[in-house]
C-alpha cells in the first residue's frame, strides 16, 4: 500500500525532513562503525560522486557527450599539489583555486564544443583526456617540476585533525575518519547546490538546450554563455573532486588521471542513471567498491586465469555496463526509482488552486 502525499504539502516536507535526518545519522554513524581503511574507500567514493555529478551536468542534463573529465580531476589534483607543496597554501584554501583553474580549463574546452557536436565532440574530448597526462609530464615551463612528472609527487602531510578536530576527539592515527566529515560536508553542499541549480533559470536553460537547441535560443537562452557555464561548472566540480582525491591519497601522479578514469566516471554515471541526482552516488559506490570486491576473485579456467587484482576489474565494469544498458536503460536510479516510488511512496502533483471566490459562481 503506497503512501500518497501531495507535492510541497506539509506532510511531504515533514517526510523529507525525517528522511534527510535519518540519512545524515546513518552517514555519520557509518564513519564510526566502518574500519579506518573502509572509511578511506568511502572518502574516495564521495570524491568520485562529486566528479560524476559534474560529468552529469554536461552529459546528462546538457546532452553533450564529453569524455574528457579525467583531465579536470587531474588538473584539480595537480593544482592542489603545487599550491600546498610549493606555495605553502593551507589545505582548504586550495579549493577555490583548484575549482577556478578547472573552471577556466573547462570553459576553454567549451569553445570547440559550441561548434562541434555529437560524435566529433566525443573524439575531441577523448583526445583531451589522453593528451592531459602527457602534458603534465613535459619539462617546459617547469610543469614536470610542479606536477612531479612521471614519478608523481607526494603531498607532505595528509589532512590531519587540528583544532576543532582534536577537540572532537579525532586522533592522528585515524586521519581518514576526520577527513570523512569534512568531505561529507562538501558533498552535501555540492548536492544541494546542483539540485538548486537545476531548478533555477540556469539549470532550466541547460536542459532546454539539450532538448532543443534552436527552441532554447528562440526562447532567449544565450547558447554561448550557457554552454561555457555548463562546461565550466562541470569542470570545477571535477577540480574539487581532484583536490579531495589528492589530499586524501597524499600523492598525485599522472598515471592516476589516464583515460580509464574518464571511462570509470562514465560507467558510474550510466549505471547510476544519466540525468538523475541520486545516480551519481550509486555509480560512485559501484565503481569504488566493485574494484574492492574484485580483488578477492581469482579463478583459474585452465587456459586463462581471472585475477581480480589486475586489469580484470575493468572487465567487471564492462559487463555491468553492458547489462545495465540492456535491462536498465536509464540506469539504476532512472529505471527503478519511478517503479518503486509508484508502489511505496507516491508523490501526487499539487492540486490547482481553487478560485478564491467560488461563491460568486453559484
Amino acid at each position, binding site marked *: 500500500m503506497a503512501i500518497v502525499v501531495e507535492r510541497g504539502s506539509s506532510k511531504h516536507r515533514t517526510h523529507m525532513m525525517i528522511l534527510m535526518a535519518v540519512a545524515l545519522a546513518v552517514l555519520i554513524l557509518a564513519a564510526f562503525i566502518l574500519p579506518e581503511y573502509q572509511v578511506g574507500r568511502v572518502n574516495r567514493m564521495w570524491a568520485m560522486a562529486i566528479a560524476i555529478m559534474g560529468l552529469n551536468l554536461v552529459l546528462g542534463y546538457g546532452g553533450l557527450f564529453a569524455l574528457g573529465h579525467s583531465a579536470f580531476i587531474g588538473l584539480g589534483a595537480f593544482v592542489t599539489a603545487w599550491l600546498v607543496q610549493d606555495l605553502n597554501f593551507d589545505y582548504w584554501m586550495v579549493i577555490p583555486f583548484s575549482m577556478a583553474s578547472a573552471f577556466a580549463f573547462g570553459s576553454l574546452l567549451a569553445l570547440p564544443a559550441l561548434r562541434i557536436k555529437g560524435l566529433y565532440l566525443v573524439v*575531441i574530448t577523448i583526445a583531451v583526456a589522453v593528451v592531459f597526462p602527457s602534458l603534465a609530464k613535459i619539462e617546459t615551463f617547469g610543469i614536470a617540476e610542479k606536477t612531479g612528472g612521471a614519478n608523481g609527487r607526494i603531498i607532505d602531510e595528509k589532512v590531519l585533525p587540528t583544532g576543532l578536530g582534536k577537540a572532537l576527539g579525532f586522533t592522528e592515527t585515524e586521519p581518514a575518519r576526520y577527513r570523512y566529515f569534512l568531505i561529507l560536508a562538501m558533498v552535501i553542499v555540492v548536492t544541494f547546490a546542483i539540485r538548486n541549480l537545476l531548478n533555477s533559470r540556469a539549470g532550466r536553460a541547460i536542459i532546454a538546450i539539450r532538448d532543443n537547441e534552436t527552441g532554447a535560443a528562440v526562447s532567449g537562452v544565450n547558447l554561448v554563455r550557457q554552454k561555457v557555464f555548463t562546461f565550466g561548472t562541470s569542470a570545477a566540480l571535477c577540480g574539487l573532486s581532484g583536490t579531495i582525491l589528492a589530499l586524501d591519497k597524499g600523492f598525485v601522479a599522472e598515471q592516476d588521471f589516464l583515460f580509464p578514469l574518464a571511462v570509470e566516471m*562514465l560507467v558510474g554515471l550510466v549505471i547510476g542513471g544519466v540525468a538523475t541526482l541520486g545516480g551519481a552516488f550509486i555509480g560512485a559506490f559501484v565503481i569504488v567498491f566493485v574494484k574492492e570486491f574484485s580483488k578477492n576473485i581469482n579463478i583459474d579456467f585452465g587456459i586463462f586465469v581471472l585475477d581480480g587484482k589486475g586489469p580484470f576489474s*575493468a572487465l567487471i565494469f*564492462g559487463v555491468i555496463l553492458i547489462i545495465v*544498458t540492456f535491462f536498465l536503460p536509464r540506469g539504476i536510479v532512472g529505471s527503478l526509482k519511478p517503479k518503486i516510488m509508484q508502489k511505496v511512496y507516491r508523490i501526487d502533483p499539487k492540486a490547482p488552486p481553487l478560485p478564491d471566490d467560488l461563491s460568486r459562481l453559484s
Partner: protein
Amino acid sequence: MTLFLQRILDGLFNGSIYGALAVAIAISHRATGRVNLAQGEIGLFGGYIALAMASPAASFVAGAALFSNLPGHPFNLWAATMIAVMIATILAVALQRVVMRDFGESTPQRALNRSIALLICVSAVISSQWGGRARVFGQLFPSGADDYLNVAGARLRYTTIGAWVVVLVSCGLVTLFMSKTKAGLSFRALTDNRGSSVLVGIQPKKLMALGWGISGALAALAASLSASMSLLDSSLMFRTLIYALAAVTLGGFDSLRGAVVGGIIVAQAQTLIPGYLGLPTEMSIVAALIVLIAVLVFRPWGLFGQRPVERV
C-alpha cells in the same frame, strides 16, 4: 631537405596503420551509423592471437599452448596473421550480434556507452592475459638495417612499402566488394538511405554484422602491421585508435578515401610538428589534436565527408 624528406617517409608508415584503422572505423560507422570505439581493441586481440599462433608452445605467451595441438604449429607469421584476421572477423561479427544487436536503432548515447563497455572488456581481457610487458611480434617484411630504398638520400623502408601494399590491396578488395557484389550493393544502399532500403527487402541485421566483420579484419591487419614494426603491447591500439579517430574525423565519417588521406595527414602532423618545434615525442598526440580541432571548427563534416543537410 633530406631530413624533411626522411621525416615525411617515416610518417608514411604510421599513415598506413592509421589509414587502415580509420577505414575500419568508417566501414563500421557506415554499417550502423554509430562509431565503434572498441575497433582498435578487436584488432589488437587479433594481433595477440597471431602472436600466440606463431609462438612455440614452450614460450610464455598466453594462448600459445592452446594452439599447439593444431597441425603445423608454430605457424609461419604470415599464415598466423591471416588466421588471426579471420578470428578477429568472427569475433567482431559475434560481438555485433550479441552485444551491439540494436546498435543502429538505439540512441547514439546508449550505443556509445555500449561500445565503450566493449572497449574496456576487450582491453581488460587483453591486458590480463598478455599485458605486463611489450612482446616481439616478428617481422612481416624484411626490416634489417639495409632493407631500404634510397630516395634522394632519405630511406624508404621496405616495411613502409609493404604496409602500404597490404593496406591498399585490402582497401581495394573492400571497394571491389562494395561495388561488384550484391551484398556490397545492398550495404551501400543501407548506408545511403536506411528506411528505403529496409522497405525494398534489405536486411540491416546481416549487413551490420558484415560491416563489423570487414572492419574487424582491417583492424586486425592494422594491429599486426603496427606490431611488426615495433612491439606488441597492450596499449598499442588505444593510442592508434586516437590517431585513427582523428584521421576518420578529418576524412569525414562516410568516406573510405577520406579515411586513408586523413591517416596520412595525421601521421605527417604527428612527425613533422613535434620534429620541427623540438617537442618531445609524447607531444605528437597534441599535434594530432590541434589539427583535428582546426579542421572541425572550419569543416565540421570533415575534408571528404558530405555536408549534412537538414530537411525542414
